[in-house]
């Protein structure tokens, strides 16, 4: 068991009060597992990803624990986390295209980065060259400035840099959303190959695009309004979703082959609740077509089948 998160709560401090963006997340990621994390914007998925690597000034750790390979991660302590960042937990940021220092040649930037971690650039360089070749870049990228590369090339370069020290957990936040379809596919397949080559032990892929997750992830975790809604192996989430939110989310996706004339899709009416003063009970209640009296009580995130957990009274079968 590579990563274990239990009851993690991270709030945003605002003048009006705490925004409960991540309100009790309990899950784990196995070794060699690629877990996809999906949901609408504002459901807390990026908050969850960021909280595992760096809490920024507005974020406040409230409760919960994170264990990676048996070591507890001190995510509330910015200084203490430094020891783990890059080496154990690494991130491919949302805007990887602008993640590199524009004033440094890429090779120099990597050298400085490794030096700051007390690693020798010289020793790592052969491995770096091997990985650059693996993602289909030319060795001379190291003597170029980031501006000389195209978006997809920069993206792949950042992926190589992020995983250079073979981190145990890699967090990839919306890395495919700004790319063209053909590049998107290349980047997604590179991610999977990193896992297959053992560059990273486990991975958390955050995206709003469930169809990308179907292509890459082993398991999918769906979040809604700061809480976990459903987690299951990819096939189960796509083919047999149990939480009504997951069902509606998946059925609202247009696919190649589905035409308006033949099959009219519909969205999810309403919008996610504001998390400053979140509603009590099930947070999806107001938009849920199946909501009934019991939903005023908060459904626990429990196992409903093998490897399949959901937070819904209807899914757990206690709707009697």
């Amino acid at each position, binding site marked *: 068991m590579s990563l274990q998160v239990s009851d993690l709560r991270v709030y945003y401090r605002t003048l009006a009060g705490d925004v409960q963006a991540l309100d009790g997340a309990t899950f784990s990621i196995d070794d060699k597992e690629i877990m996809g994390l999906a949901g609408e914007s504002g459901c807390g998925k990026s908050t969850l990803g960021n909280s595992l690597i760096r809490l920024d000034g507005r974020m406040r750790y409230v409760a919960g624990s994170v264990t990676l390979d048996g070591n507890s991660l001190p995510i509330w302590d910015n200084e203490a986390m430094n020891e783990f960042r890059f080496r154990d937990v690494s991130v491919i940021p949302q805007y990887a295209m602008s993640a590199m220092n524009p004033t440094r040649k890429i090779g120099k930037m990597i050298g400085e980065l490794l030096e700051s971690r007390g690693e020798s650039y010289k020793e790592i360089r052969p491995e770096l060259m091997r990985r650059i070749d693996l993602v289909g870049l030319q060795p001379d990228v190291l003597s170029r400035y980031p501006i000389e590369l195209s978006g997809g*090339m920069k993206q792949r370069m950042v992926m190589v840099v992020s995983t250079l020290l073979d981190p145990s957990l890699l967090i990839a936040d919306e890395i495919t959303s700004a790319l063209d379809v053909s*590049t998107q596919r290349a980047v997604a397949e590179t991610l999977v190959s990193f896992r297959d080559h053992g560059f990273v032990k486990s991975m958390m892929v955050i995206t709003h695009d469930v169809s990308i997750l179907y292509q890459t992830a082993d398991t999918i975790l769906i979040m809604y309004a700061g809480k976990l809604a459903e987690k299951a192996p990819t096939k189960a989430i796509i083919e047999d979703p149990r939480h009504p939110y997951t069902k509606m989310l998946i059925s609202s996706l247009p696919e*190649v082959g589905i035409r308006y004339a033949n099959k009219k899709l519909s969205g999810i009416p309403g919008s996610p609740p504001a998390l400053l003063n979140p509603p009590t009970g099930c947070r999806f209640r107001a938009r849920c077509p199946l909501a009934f009296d019991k939903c005023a009580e908060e459904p626990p995130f429990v196992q409903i089948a093998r490897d399949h957990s959901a937070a819904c009274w209807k899914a757990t079968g206690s709707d009697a």
Partner: protein
Amino acid sequence: MLSLNRVSKFYKVGTFGGKELVAVRDVSFDVDEGEVVSLIGESGSGKTTIGKMVLKLIEISRGSITCDGTDVAGIHGGAVKSYYRHVQGVFQDPFSSYNPIFKADRVFGMIRGEYFADMARSEWSDKVEGALRAVALEPDQVLNKYPHQLSGGQLQRLLVARALLLELKFLVADEIISMLDASTRIDVLNLLAELKGRGMGILFITHDLSLGNYISEKTVILRRGAVVEMGATDKVFGNPTHPYTKVLISSVPQLHKKWADVEAEIQARGGDASGTCLFHQAYPPTVKATGKATAKAGDGADVAPTLVKVEEDHFVGCFDLGEGTCRVA
């Protein structure tokens, strides 16, 4: 209704405009009333440039665009205003389309000041209400609100409602749903389909093939400013013929089919194209396309391939089609 006839757009780049960048090359297609045509291409393919030319936001370098028989380039002065009465655009980012310090419904006020200055207040508010209902918004939920108080989907629908206040015949929808959440994008898409049902012509510009497939009757696939394949949507998607179209379709992430399966399916149907296709010179099959798709004049790619009819309502622009060197058809 709207018809593009061999439209090209060049930009002068470099010192003193010494170089020419070809953004759009010899593009011709028609959009009829009650028809959605999706214009699909990757970044730099010129799809937005075409939309802007239709909206008279930039000049046409060569060729002509006609709307109901009138040459769009020849519309000047007061006639421009009446052109915009019938042809409007909605763009990608709803958040930056609004002035954040004014209430969102000010966009309606501007239309009134410009086009309906003599209309009585009550008649006007009925009209606004009608337009809002047409885009499935509750007037009291959206009027008198600032942009930050509304969701992206609501803002985007307000922009469509604004366009509907005019006697709109043609809408250019440029990536209008790519910034929206999965749960709301389908609603905006369905709205476009409803407008189409009322006889409006829509140019749906997108990079997302599944969206284009869902809504449009006709698909035009652009690459480096040139049309590589166009025709009825079911034919283009059902029987992709140009190697580039095949790459695009096999790269779309799907929900029930893995990438490898789609690729195998396409290969089993048409076989992998090989030969001296310009597409393959730029992107040899072993290298993954990286999305760098800017075309420069003079690099051998400044001539557009002629479109060849491969079946009824399905055209493919491949240089070697018909000469036997490229096994596409």
